């Protein structure tokens, strides 16, 4: 090579390009050799790789490519023939393997892609199975909840507990936002919001019952979806951003609890329903599921109407439980008698009526047993007396009952007269010292029967508690042996004396008791001769038990003070529930503030609670309104007297005395 004289640049152009190519080839070779190494490394690490021979082929392809590029490093400068041969070989091999690889990839790539598809498919299936399992589990849990709920509902007969439990449990089971119950009012024209889950004291919202949506729900026994904007569903103040959840309403048939006795409520014949409204949480995408609706229907249907056989059974259960309750009360009375804590419930009553009622009660049995029974009341027996009417009646009834029980034939006679001094003293009772006074008299009652009689030696044992007379046919004795013991205690409390005479077995026996009763003083007004002397307001009603229901603390206190001034024994309550809880037969009068929202309801419930007229306390309404509506409501609910607030001592006294007189007059008929 001859060098020319022209100036040569440091790196002639082709030399620069050649240099770059050189470097690139080197790096390509390097990369191509390292790729298989990496592949091998990672495949060794992975657990599954199905295409090993693909790897081999691909590795060979890469390696050969690399080799080609490597060898080309030597071809930049002059090279020998060996290098050329090696280069050619390498290139040929590379070509072969590349084509083979290209052809093979046509098969492999679809396979690889389908693997991906299968993977996706399996993932979807797994998710679906998960969902189904979740559903099944929820259903099973709900089933369990329904069973528990049903059990809980059936464990109590109290309608309020049932309804409240229903709401609470439904709310919990279905994760409801709100659950509410609308009960029909007394008039039957409106539905009143009675219970809600979240709000403590629902103010008495009412809706008319004739709304189309309500008719629709009442006409079917399914749970129906209703619009969240309908009046029965608008229970919470809606602010703009809430998307209310779906609302479902279902009818709840109501049991007529007062159906067992003829009552003067006119709506007995129509079937009454309450409306239960259930709301899903708002702002959630949750929808009512079919099985949730079924659950709601089942639960709502718990309180179904009874068939006649069922009603008979329930009635029987009620009666026997009443009987049981009476028996228990007897025992309780006795224990109170024992420790001296029993006090007589003094009041004025009609003595003649007491005897007549006893006679009426025992007549059915005596006519079945064909025992003639007569009642002789002495002509000088006062009509009205002061004493414990209930316990006197209990005593007479027990004695007469015994006479009837132990007689198979013969007649029974009941005689009652005022005991004068000769008939008072009895040699059998040396410690009985009757004291005659002006305002008391001694009533002597004799019950004679011609039945089995008693051995005179057994007579003292009769009054022992729990002891049955063994000589009597034990198959007849169904009592607990407490009756006579209790009666004797009552008679003793009434400062009297009780004994039995019998001439022996088979010769009948006579039960005699004497009790001390007060004489009501005659005042100048002959209209009420049975009230004690009115002391101009101070103690007009001694010991009269009164219950006052008023929400307002100040009014309550004022009313209490007023009644205490009249000598009453006052208890105060501030809510309807408390009132119903506390009220008992001892309370003669209940004063209710009917201006409070629950006032009339409380009065109505009192009517329900005390079904016999003479057991029911008198209900006095305290109201600030004298308008017609209030008056009509009072008359309809069955309120006995009305006092206008604010009232005075004199006003209260006159109303109470009128009422008490009215009641006694009523009983005299």
């Amino acid at each position, binding site marked *: 090579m001859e060098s020319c004289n022209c100036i040569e640049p440091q790196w002639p152009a082709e030399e620069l390009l050649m240099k770059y190519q050189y470097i690139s080839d080197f790096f390509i070779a390097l990369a191509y050799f390292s790729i298989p190494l990496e592949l091998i490394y990672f495949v060794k690490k992975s657990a599954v790789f199905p295409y090993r021979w693909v790897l081999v082929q691909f590795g060979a392809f890469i390696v050969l490519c690399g080799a080609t590029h490597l060898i080309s490093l030597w071809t930049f400068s002059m090279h020998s023939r060996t290098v050329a041969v090696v280069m050619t070989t390498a290139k040929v091999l590379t070509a072969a393997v590349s084509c083979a690889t290209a052809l093979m990839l046509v098969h492999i790539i679809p396979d690889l892609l389908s693997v991906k598809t299968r993977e996706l498919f399996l993932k979807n299936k797994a998710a679906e199975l998960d969902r189904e399992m979740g559903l099944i589990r929820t259903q099973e849990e709900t089933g369990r909840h329904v069973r528990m709920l049903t059990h809980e509902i059936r464990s109590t007969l109290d309608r309020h507990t049932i309804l409240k439990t229903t709401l609470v449990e439904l709310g919990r089971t279905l994760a409801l936002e709100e659950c509410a119950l609308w009960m029909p009012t007394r008039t039957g024209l409106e539905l009143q919001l009675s219970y809600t889950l979240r709000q403590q004291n629902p*103010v008495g919202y009412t809706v008319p019952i004739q709304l189309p949506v309500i008719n629709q729900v009442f006409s079917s026994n399914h749970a129906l979806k209703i619009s969240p904007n309908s009046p029965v569903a608008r229970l919470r103040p809606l602010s703009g951003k809430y998307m209310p959840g779906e609302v479902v309403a279902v009818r709840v048939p109501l049991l007529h609890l007062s159906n067992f006795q003829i009552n003067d409520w006119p709506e007995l014949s129509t079937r009454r329903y309450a409306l239960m409204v259930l709301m899903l949480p708002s702002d959630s995408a949750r929808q009512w599921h079919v099985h949730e609706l079924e659950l709601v229907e089942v639960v709502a249907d718990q309180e179904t109407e009874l068939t006649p056989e069922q009603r008979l059974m329930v009635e029987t259960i009620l009666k026997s439980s009443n009987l049981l309750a009476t028996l228990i009360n007897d025992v309780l009375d006795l224990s109170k008698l024992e420790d001296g804590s029993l006090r007589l419930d003094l009041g004025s009553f009609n003595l003649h009526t007491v005897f007549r009622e006893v006679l009426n009660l025992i007549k059915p049995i005596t006519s079945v047993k064909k025992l003639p029974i007569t009642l002789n009341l002495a002509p000088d027996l006062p009509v009205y007396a002061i004493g414990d009417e209930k316990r006197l009646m209990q005593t007479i009834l027990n004695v007469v009952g015994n006479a009837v029980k132990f007689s198979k034939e013969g007649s029974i006679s009941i005689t009652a007269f005022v005991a004068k001094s000769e008939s008072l003293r009895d040699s059998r009772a040396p410690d009985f010292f009757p004291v005659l006074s002006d305002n008391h008299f001694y009533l002597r009652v004799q019950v004679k029967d011609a039945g089995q009689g008693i051995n005179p030696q057994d007579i003292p044992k009769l009054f022992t508690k729990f002891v049955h007379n063994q000589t009597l046919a034990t198959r007849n004795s169904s009592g607990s042996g407490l009756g006579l013991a209790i009666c004797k205690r009552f008679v003793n409390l009434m400062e009297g004396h009780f004994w039995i005479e019998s001439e022996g077995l088979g010769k009948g026996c006579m039960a005699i008791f004497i009790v001390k009763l007060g004489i009501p003083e005659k005042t100048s007004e002959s209209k009420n001769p049975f009230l004690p002397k009115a002391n101009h307001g101070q103690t007009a009603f001694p010991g009269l038990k009164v219950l006052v229901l008023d929400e*307002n*603390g100040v009014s309550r206190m*004022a009313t209490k*003070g007023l009644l*205490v*001034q009249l000598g009453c024994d006052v208890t105060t309550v501030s809510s309807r529930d408390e009132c119903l809880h506390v009220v008992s037969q001892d309370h003669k009068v209940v004063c209710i503030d009917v*201006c409070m929202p629950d006032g009339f309801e409380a009065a109505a419930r009192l009517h329900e609670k005390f079904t016999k007229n003479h057991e029911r306390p008198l209900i006095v309404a305290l109201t600030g309104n004298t308008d017609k509506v209030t008056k009509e409501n009072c008359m309809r609910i069955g309120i006995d007297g009305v006092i206008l607030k*604010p009232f005075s*001592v004199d006003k209260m006294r006159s109303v109470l005395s009128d009422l008490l007189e009215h009641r006694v007059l009523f009983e005299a008929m």
Partner: protein
Amino acid sequence: MDVLSQLQRQLADFLASLYREGFVDDQFTQLQKLQDESSPDFVMEVVSLFFEDCEKLVNNMAKVLEQQVVDFKQVDSHVHQLKGSSSSIGAARIRNVCIAFKTFCEGQNREGCLRCLQQVNHEHAQLKANLQSLFTLERQIVAAGGSVPAMQ
């Protein structure tokens, strides 16, 4: 003795003025009649209960009226309570304010309600002060050995 009769005359005059100015009415007399040896502090107890109740109701009503959207039903029920309490003890002026208050509630008139509330507060404070003076006078009479004369 002179001190006693003076005190008694003072009491009678004060009470008469309360009646005249309409702070209390007949119902208050009725309440006084209920007080006797068995319940010597009856009136004071009832009155204290009333004042506590009144304060609570006023606070509640103020809270409700302060809100953006006023729940007039709630205010109405509070006013109803206050009206009942005030009639029971014979706080005539407060009762009258309550009657006006109720009308404003029904008309959903917030300004009117706020004004009435202020008035209630004012009357409450006045009545409290007056009755406290009354009770103090009564206590002084009792301490001086006399008995509080029964009002006609």
